[in-house]
């Protein structure tokens, strides 16, 4: 059956529906909206996309998104180069920066080890992490990975390969959300919170 749309319109809808979280119906709605928009707005969008695509690349040291060879954290002398926080994706860097609690550098793995999907250590930026340890004089590696199976496998694997290099390997605590209620916590989270308890100084 021939398409009900004109060819350029169909091409636009097809391209849009390839985006994550956008189905054919949403793609159609966005496409119609774009056609109705003023030309200036559409041009702004398309130039923003091409500009972002050409200008944003991976930081050569930590694989965070960056405009230049080094990202804003690796290129900043005020940040502590002896502490590295290991995260899964660039968006996790943003989440940690929001806390304003960390002043070291990052390392983005670009994924996690996932045995059930066949994603192994060599597909991630683990070798690059190991190569940073000695030249930078790294003292501590903080593993900031999701508290799920993949995060656990990756953390234990990293601990195994990092320990022999003489660095302290720590993993972020897992427990109750601030403002939460004990009564509603599930037993696994509460159990981990108990395990990771610490002394209170009054």
């Amino acid at each position: 059956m021939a398409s009900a749309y004109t060819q350029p319109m169909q091409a636009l809808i097809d391209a849009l529906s390839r985006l994550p979280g956008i189905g054919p119906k949403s793609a159609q709605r966005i496409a119609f909206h774009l056609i109705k928009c003023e030309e200036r707005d559409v041009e702004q969008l398309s130039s923003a996309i091409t500009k972002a695509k050409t200008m944003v690349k991976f930081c050569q040291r930590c694989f965070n998104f960056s405009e230049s060879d080094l990202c804003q954290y690796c290129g900043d002398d005020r940040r502590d180069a002896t502490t590295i926080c290991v995260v899964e994706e660039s968006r996790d860097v943003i989440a940690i920066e929001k806390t304003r609690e960390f002043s070291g550098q990052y390392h983005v793995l670009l994924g996690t080890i996932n045995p059930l999907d066949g994603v192994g250590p060599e597909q991630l930026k683990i070798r690059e992490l190991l190569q940073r340890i000695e030249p930078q004089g790294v003292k501590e590696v903080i593993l900031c990975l999701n508290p799920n199976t993949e995060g656990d496998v990756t953390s234990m694997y990293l601990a195994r390969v990092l320990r022999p290099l003489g660095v302290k390997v720590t993993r972020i605590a897992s427990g109750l959300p601030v403002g939460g209620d004990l009564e509603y916590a599930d037993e696994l989270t509460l159990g981990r919170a108990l395990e990771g308890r610490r002394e209170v100084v009054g």
Partner: protein
Amino acid sequence: MTLYRDKAVVLRTYDLREADRIIVMMTESHGKVRAVANGVRKMSSRFGARLEPLSHVDILISTGKNLGTVNQVDLVTSAKGLYADLDRLTMGLAMLEAVDQLGMENEPTEHLYRMLVGALQWLSENDSSLVLAAFYFKLLVAEGVGAQVEACVGCGAPGDRLVAFDVFRGGAQCRDCRSGATISAEAIGIIQDIVGGRLNNALSLRASSATREVAALATKCMEHHLERRLKSVAVFESPEM
């Protein structure tokens, strides 16, 4: 829409939409089941933590047109012991992958459930390099394609004359019939123990070249039966970077 309650081991999960997950599990009396768990990726989810792979849970599922929905989850035993050690965890995941491949959806396979629960329980309490291999060999026996190691698969020559193992023929061979790879007498002995009901003998062995031989062979046999590679075993085959 009907509700049913069952015990299950979570085999794997797939992310769905913004905060949901499809949970694949091996249940006691409904076979392999896929069901949607709504909102489990949110921080505030009450049962998300119980639906990680390897969890043994008591679950309430409402059946739908296509996929069922998970309504309630209670832990039977937590997989904490498995999550404490990388080797145990990867062996556990390798067990899940094989069961996921062997199980049929909504086709009751109580033996698979029981074997998996037993093996995971054992794994979380003991250290043995052979538990995964033993599990694979036992699964193959349960599937009706167990390894023949008591006598030669070609001529029936007795156990002390076996020198090779051919995965395609499904068993050990004597010098005259051999077409498969060489295997040591110790390895043959271990496999005889595993399939012959002397499992504890095999599991109490220390790691050696023979146990490594058996482990590699178990994976090969399982992969031959499934007709595909086992991803979770391959991931850590070269741990040295």
